[in-house]
């Protein structure tokens, strides 16, 4: 009996939903951070989808099958396969200094196909702030999509000459509701006057 219970506990531990979760789509996250003399101004975000999701989008939205999304196709894609994430703040958790920035709207949406993968690009305007540090995290709170921020190389910084900057990536623990806790990468940019 004791042996059986131990085995059962082991199996339970192995297969528990608090230990295992399962996204169905994958995104590689890239971004370009821009600042002017007054501080941070915007972030241009790029999502690079996995080949499987890309294929399903090509089937449905590249109507003329030319390997590009024209104006009409992009509009349909925006309406049907993008803008719903507005209610998830575009999967972005941004902090300027110690203040949270709630992302309610984005602009300049672009959808492209490159090397067999779907790219989405959009611009996130940042509020004017004296803050000299910016933190970017990106995750889907439903965990249907896993968003990966691979390294600092996935970020580009565009700042005027008055600033020098340094960057690093750390990890934070995020609670994904029923899926439990997961580490998520946080990308930091810190501006210093030269």
């Amino acid at each position, binding site marked *: *009996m004791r042996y*059986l*219970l131990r085995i*059962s506990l082991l*199996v*339970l531990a*192995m*297969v*528990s*939903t*608090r*230990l*295992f*979760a*399962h*996204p*169905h*789509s994958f995104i590689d996250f890239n971004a370009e951070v821009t600042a002017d003399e007054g501080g941070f101004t915007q972030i241009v975000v790029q999502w690079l989808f*996995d*080949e*499987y*999701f890309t*294929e*399903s*989008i090509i*089937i*449905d*939205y590249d109507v003329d099958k030319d390997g590009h999304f024209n104006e009409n196709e992009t509009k349909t894609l925006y309406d*049907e*396969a*993008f803008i*719903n*994430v507005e*209610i*998830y*703040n575009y999967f972005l*958790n941004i902090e300027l200094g110690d203040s*949270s920035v*709630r992302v309610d709207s984005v602009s300049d949406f672009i959808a492209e196909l490159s090397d067999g993968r779907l790219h989405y690009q959009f611009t996130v305007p940042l509020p004017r702030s004296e803050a000299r540090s910016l933190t970017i*995290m990106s995750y*889907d*709170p*439903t965990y*249907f*999509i*896993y968003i*990966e921020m691979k390294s600092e190389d996935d970020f580009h910084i565009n700042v005027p000459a008055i600033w020098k900057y340094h960057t690093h990536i750390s*990890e*934070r*623990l*995020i*609670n*994904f*509701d*029923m*899926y*439990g*806790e*997961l*580490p998520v990468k946080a990308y930091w940019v810190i501006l210093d006057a030269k």
Partner: protein
Amino acid sequence: MKQAAIVTLLLILFSLSSLAAQNPLFKTNAKRDTVRSGTIADTSMKNAPIPWHARAKLKLTSWQAHIRNELYKHKEDMNSLSGLLIALALVFFYGFIHAVGPGHGKVFITSFAFSTRLKASRAFIGSFAIGLLHSIAALLLVVLLSYVFDSPVSRTSDIVRTRIEEIAFTVLLAIGLYMLIRSVFSKGHAHSNMSFWGLILSVGLVPCPGAVMISIYGLSILQSMSLSILMILVMGLGMSLAISLFALIPSLMSNARFFQNPIVWKIISITGSSFIILISAVYLFALL
């Protein structure tokens, strides 16, 4: 006895998961979407240490991504027998790891097995029926949308799956109520063929979103119906194995003296039925 009670409680708690899974990029009109609005900034725990189980979970996520990448890279090598076998092995492991995660009806079949003291053979058959149906339903959905209705697969499959889930949770709610009544009033093992197969069909016929992606891979990238069917069946077997890990535990434990006590058995039976009712109702409410 205390250990057995802890195991039972853990199993119920650990199996609690959603059958529902929708791509947040697509609007499905699920109430969940509006309920969750604005929560993303509120869940970060600054300076909290990263526990080992969180890292393990992330590792499993990256394995899934890795298996899918390998399968995609393998698309040119499917003509040889060795290439095909490697692809099938990848699909099997993907199905297994994928179904170990939340959803896929594990909570329903496990609660049912607890509630009815289901025999191991029946639990095994039920698990395999769910896993295979779950993946075959995904392939059928993609085939119907693409070839019969000429409808967008990516978004429409999500909408159709949501509608199927609404029906499935309604049926599961009814089965749970029926089982609860039988658990309360019956003196023997309260289990009928109708409720068993009703539960299997309700859970199994909800198409797996992961299998939808494998179907798209087979039909659109490989452009082969026979390979699609083969891969979907093998993925279904992988999922079945994962589901059976849950469903077999109640029958493995049923020989313990603790479970022979008629009062304990009655409590477990009622708890299992109540759990099916509770989870069906919660997710039905979230979808409607």
